[in-house]
């Protein structure tokens, strides 16, 4: 199974494709027999001793044994531990309702901010943007957000300041931006100084010194979705030369 999965890494898989577990013909007598363990990520599903693909996309692999399907979808499905950009839609008692683009609004407690106590309430208004992390996210429960880490520090999360622009891109592009050694990010670095906040729910927040530059960055990132790497480099080069 392991070798079969590895053969298919980087190839496009469709729902219904399967990898079946086959007992090895010979058991080596000299080496200790170790069971193969495979960790399945999004898009892969275990059914008995078979591994089924349930989303279309490219099979990816991470050492030593993690496999997942990388797909280009637009709708966000909350997952525990992911950081997202949300919009506060309602204030009710001691929780805020936050729209994160999922099927249900997430809840955010007023105590889940750095330095917040029962007396000292955080200043959050309806319509504010928050950068928060999921602490509860599963298909059966209401998703729950927090703006502090386990040691009680904000760690970059919280309510956004004034200025900046939020826009939406595909979830695939977000993952490409967040990957270490991301090419898009390094291309963007060379253009102009800007602040970029990436939410795993497909929302990006950009702030640069001028509104014009903010809009250029936003348009560039939105168009990255449908471009190959050489096309993107060519476009960034032309922007850098001031052609656009």
């Amino acid at each position: 199974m392991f070798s079969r999965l590895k053969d298919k890494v980087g190839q496009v898989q469709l729902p219904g494709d399967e990898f079946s577990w086959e007992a090895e013909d010979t058991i080596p007598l000299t080496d200790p027999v170790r069971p193969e363990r495979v960790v399945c990520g999004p898009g892969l599903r275990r059914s008995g001793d078979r591994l089924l693909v349930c989303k279309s996309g490219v099979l990816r692999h991470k050492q030593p044994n993690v496999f997942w399907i990388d797909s280009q979808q637009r709708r966000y499905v909350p997952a525990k531990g992911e950081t997202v950009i949300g919009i506060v839609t309602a204030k009710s008692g001691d929780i805020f309702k936050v729209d994160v683009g999922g099927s249900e609004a997430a809840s955010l407690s007023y105590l889940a901010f750095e330095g917040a106590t029962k007396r000292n309430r955080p200043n959050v208004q309806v319509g504010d943007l928050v950068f928060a992390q999921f602490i509860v996210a599963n298909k059966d429960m209401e998703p729950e957000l927090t703006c502090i880490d386990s040691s009680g520090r904000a760690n970059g999360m919280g309510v956004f300041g004034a200025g900046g622009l939020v826009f939406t891109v595909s979830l695939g592009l977000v993952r490409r931006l967040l990957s270490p050694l991301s090419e898009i990010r390094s291309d963007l670095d060379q253009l102009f100084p800007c602040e970029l906040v990436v939410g795993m729910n497909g929302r990006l927040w950009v702030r640069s010194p001028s509104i014009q530059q903010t809009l250029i960055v936003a348009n560039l990132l939105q168009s990255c979705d449908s471009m190959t790497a050489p096309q993107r480099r060519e476009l960034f080069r032309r922007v850098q030369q001031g052609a656009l």
Partner: protein
Amino acid sequence: MTQSSCDALHFFRGGGMMEVCGSSTVSLREFGCEQSLLSRPDGSASFTQGDTSVLAGVYGPAEVKVSKEIYDRATLEVLVQPKVGLPSVRERLQEQCVRETCEASLLLSLHPRSSLTLILQVLHDDGSLLSCFLNAACMALMDAGLPMSCLFCAVTCAIDTDGQITTDPTAAQEKESRALMTFAIDSTERKVLMSSTKGSFSVSELQQCIAVSQKASEKIFQFYRDSVRRRYSKIL
């Protein structure tokens, strides 16, 4: 909607494909597809079979109305928009055929208490409309990244007065036909997920049509694979 008898299907799967009468290759009209062509929906696709063309859009998993909420799975709603006028009884029947096929292939229990909406807009009808709906629906669901246990495709067969079977008939061929059948076939076991029939035919003709559809489905599934591969070529 009739579910075909299982023993007939086992007969074909056990003894290999039945020999298709007439030519050895099944002829389908030119088909084409484009994925994620609309910006607003979560998934979209257009599917063209000859001159028949359908545009599909999928929204979801999204918030669901309390009255339509199902506690252990997602609610799937299919809307068929005709080229002109308002949807009527014929469209409702097509909606039901598409919905039940999609429900069979989607893993709806992975998104409980949410809604999926599939909108199918007829762009042009030149025969085999139901199969074009189903093919467009499958591509759009795949584009939206919804979890599916298998893919499906649909093939329409027309039997004319001489007993000749035509796959993927045009509107003119449909009008001349004695019987018209549409089968939805799944990609893993090539079994019939849905069948919709009109007119009179014998049992052996039905079985022949299923065999022809199964053969034609290979081509469509290969086309699905090529078209998804082309779509992901930019990030490979």
